[in-house]
C-alpha cells in the first residue's frame, strides 16, 4: 500500500473502505480532492500503479465538472466514480466484480456523510487530513 495522506488519516481511510476493498474483483481505491489532488490510494497489488506520478488527474477532475456518478467500462476493468462532498471517490474493479455491490457500498459510505453521523463517512477522512 502506498500512502499519500497522513498516517492517521490513512488508517482511518482503510477502515472506512474495508467493505469496498473486501468485494471480490476490486483492485483499488483512490480519493481525489475537488482540486484534483490525490488524497489517498490503496491498490490490492501495492506496486502496480503509481497515480501520483501523473499530472493529468486535475484536468480529469475539472472535466468531470461536478458529475455525480460515472462508470467507465473498459475492455477488462471498470472505473466507478462517485462525487462526495469534499472530493471524488474512484474504485477500480475487474469487469467480473459485482458492480451493484460496489455501488451499494459507496452509497452507504457517502450517505453517512449526508446524514452527518461523522463516524463512517468520507468527511471523517478529510477532517483528519486537514488537522
Amino acid at each position, binding site marked *: 500500500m502506498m500512502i499519500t495522506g497522513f498516517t492517521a488519516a490513512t488508517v482511518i481511510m482503510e477502515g472506512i473502505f474495508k467493505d469496498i476493498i473486501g468485494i471480490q474483483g476490486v483492485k483499488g481505491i483512490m480519493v481525489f480532492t475537488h482540486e484534483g489532488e490525490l488524497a489517498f490510494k490503496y491498490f490490492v497489488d501495492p506496486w502496480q500503479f503509481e497515480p501520483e506520478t501523473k499530472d493529468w488527474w*486535475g484536468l480529469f477532475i*475539472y*472535466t468531470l465538472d461536478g458529475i455525480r*456518478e460515472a462508470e*467507465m467500462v*473498459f475492455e477488462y476493468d*471498470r*472505473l466507478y466514480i462517485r462525487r462526495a462532498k469534499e472530493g471524488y471517490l474512484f474504485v477500480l474493479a475487474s469487469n467480473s466484480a459485482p458492480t451493484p455491490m460496489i455501488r451499494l457500498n459507496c452509497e452507504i459510505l457517502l450517505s453517512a456523510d449526508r446524514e452527518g453521523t461523522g463516524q463512517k463517512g468520507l468527511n471523517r477522512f478529510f477532517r483528519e487530513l486537514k488537522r
Partner: protein
Amino acid sequence: MDRDPDLIEALETSLKKYGAGYGVVAAPDGKSATELLRKEPITLAVCNLKVPKGSDIAFLEHVFSTYPDVGVIAITGLSADKLRKMVKSNGSLQCIEQPHSIEAIVSTVRKAVEQQSEGGVLYQVSTGMFLQLIEMEQRTCTIRLMNNATRRRGALFFKDGILLDARSNGLRGEDAAYEIFSWDRVSLWIQNSCSFEERRINKELQAVILEAMRRKDEAAALSAKEAEEDLPEPEVIVPEEEESETVARVRKRLGMGNIHHGDIIDIREDNTWDSLLAQSSRIGAFFEAGELKVAYVDRGDQNDYLVVPEERSIVVEVDPKCPRDKFIKLLLEGT
C-alpha cells in the same frame, strides 16, 4: 478572472480609459470564466491566481486546449517559469509576478491586445481570396475574424502557410473552417505568430474553401426550395436528418434486449463528450484496463447518459431508473 471585485473594477476603469476598443467582462472563478468563454467572444483572459491551485492550472489548460487563440495573462505569486512548467499545454501565457500595480497590468494587457493585430487589421474583405494569399506567402500567423453580417467570431491558425486549425462557435478543425469560409464579408485581425503546433486540418486550404462553398451553395439551394414549397410554417423548417450508421448500430444493439418503453429517451451523436472520453481512455491505458467501451454518467440532470466512443461519440439518454447493467451488457456485446 478574480475573486476581488475591487481589483476588477479598478482594471475595468483603467482599460476603458484607453478607448472604446476594450470590452471587459469579469468572472469570480474558473467555472464562471469557462462559461463566459463559451458565450462571449473573449480574446484575452487576465487571471489573478496568487498561489495557483489545481483547479486554476486545469482552467489554464482548458483555455489553451479549447481556445488556443485566447491569450492568457496570469497575475501570480509564482515565477513565470514555474507557472509555465505547471501548465503542460502550449498556449499564449504571459505572467505578471506579484506584487503588481494596476498600471503594470494595464500595460501588459494593452501590449497583448496590440500584438493580436500587429500584422494588420482589414475590414470588409472576402475570406477566401485573402487566405489564399496567406498560403502563397507561407505565412505563420493567427487570424481572428468577425462575420460583418452576424458579428460571429472565429480564428484560423497558420504555420508556414498551412492551415493547422480553426475555431468558431464551439466548433474546431474542419467544421469550424467550413463555417468561417462560408462568411461573405469579414473583418480580420492578424497576429504574426501562432502558439499552436498540432495540425487538426489535414486538407489543403483550397480543398477546405471549395468544400465550404459547396456546403454554402447546398444550404442556399435548400432554403430556396423550401421557400418555393410555401410550407405552412416556414419559420420552423427543420429538415429531418437521416440517422447515422453508428446511431443505427447502437439502437439495434439496445433493441436486442427486452427494453421497457420509455427507458431510452434519445440516441444521438454528440461530440461534447469527446474530451471526457479521451481523458477516460488515457486513465484506462494507465490502469492497463483495455479500450474504453462505454461510459455511464449521472450529471444530476433529469436523465442519465450512456456514452459510446465512436468517431463521433454516441449518447444514449436514459431514464435514471433504467436497468443500467443490462444496457451496458447489451452495448458491450455489440463491440
